[in-house]
Structure formats: structure tokens, C-alpha cells
């Protein structure tokens, strides 16, 4: 049986990989995928604690988190599609229409 600590360390590793993607990469799609990795790390934490504490609420929160991640991915991809049509790029450093 896998100890809880290993699942928590795996979750922390996933979170740090996602954090690196958000901080270091400039491509919008990759940043969106990194945010999904961050969400998956939190979902893994929910499921791990739920299994080891015997409380089903954590797994319910995991299901709701998956739904939120799907909604975020759908809107994010549509936004990047529209940005690509207007700016010709999805490099986040070159998109300046929210700046003065």
C-alpha cells in the first residue's frame, strides 16, 4: 500500500512542475496546460486525503474540480483562438491589449 506521504510528495512535484510552466513559459497554450497540472495536483491531494481519512467529501471536491478544469480549458482555448486571430501570436509577452 502506498503511504500517504508519497502521494503528497507526488502532488507537490506536480504542483511545482505546473508552477514552473506558469512562471517560465511564454506560450499561452503551455501556460494553460500548466494551470491544468496545478489543478490536477490539488485534485490528487483531495483524493489522497479523502481515501486516508475515510471522508467522501474530498472525492466529491475532486469531481467538482475536474468540472471546473474542463470549463476553464474550454474558455481559455477559445480566448487564445480569438487572440491568435487578432494578434497573430499567443506569446503572452507580446499581447499588450490589457496594458495602457
Amino acid at each position, binding site marked *: 500500500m502506498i503511504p500517504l*506521504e508519497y502521494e*503528497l510528495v507526488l502532488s507537490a512535484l506536480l504542483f511545482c512542475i505546473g*508552477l514552473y510552466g506558469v*512562471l*517560465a513559459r511564454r506560450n499561452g497554450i503551455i501556460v494553460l496546460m500548466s494551470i491544468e497540472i496545478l489543478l490536477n495536483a490539488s485534485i490528487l491531494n483531495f483524493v489522497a486525503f479523502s481515501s486516508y481519512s475515510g471522508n467522501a467529501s474530498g472525492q466529491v471536491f475532486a*469531481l467538482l474540480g475536474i468540472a471546473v478544469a474542463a*470549463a476553464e480549458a*474550454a474558455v481559455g482555448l*477559445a480566448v487564445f483562438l480569438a487572440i491568435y486571430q487578432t494578434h497573430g501570436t499567443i506569446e503572452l509577452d507580446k499581447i499588450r491589449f490589457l496594458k495602457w
Partner: protein
Amino acid sequence: MKAREFLSVAAATALFVVMALSFLGGVGWPHSPTSIPVYNPNATSSNGIANELFNAFAITIILIAILLGAAMIGGVYLAKMDEPGKVGP
């Protein structure tokens, strides 16, 4: 390696070390997982995932459904092609 990537790697590594040390260091985590049923038809309290989902989180299910519907409509509105080669509002 650029400065931005170096700082990102340093921040992520430092955060991982702190989290791993806090997880592995002397915390009395539970040792064995508990089996949680997907649905318990004889439950008096919410002890299955479906029981919990549709009893304690019924309002949340409705809100998530509204969120998914809004996301679908918003995604289609942003990505629809009015004329060839032009996407978006």
C-alpha cells in the same frame, strides 16, 4: 538558461523542498486508506461518493452545471467563425 527560467526553476525547487520536508517530517499521517463506496443504498448518513454528492453538495452540482453551460456558450461565442478566416466577436 535565461534569468527568468533560472528564477522559475529556483522558486519551484525551493517550494518543492519546503513542501516535501513538511510532508515527510514527523507528521502522524494515517497509515492505511479506507474504502469509500461509490454509492451506498442503505446509508442513513452520507458515506458514499454519490450519497455525498447529491445530498450535501446538491446546490454545488447545480452551480457547476450553470458554470459548464456558461463556459460552453462562452467558448462557442468566442471561437465562432462569422466569415471565413475571422474568428471571434
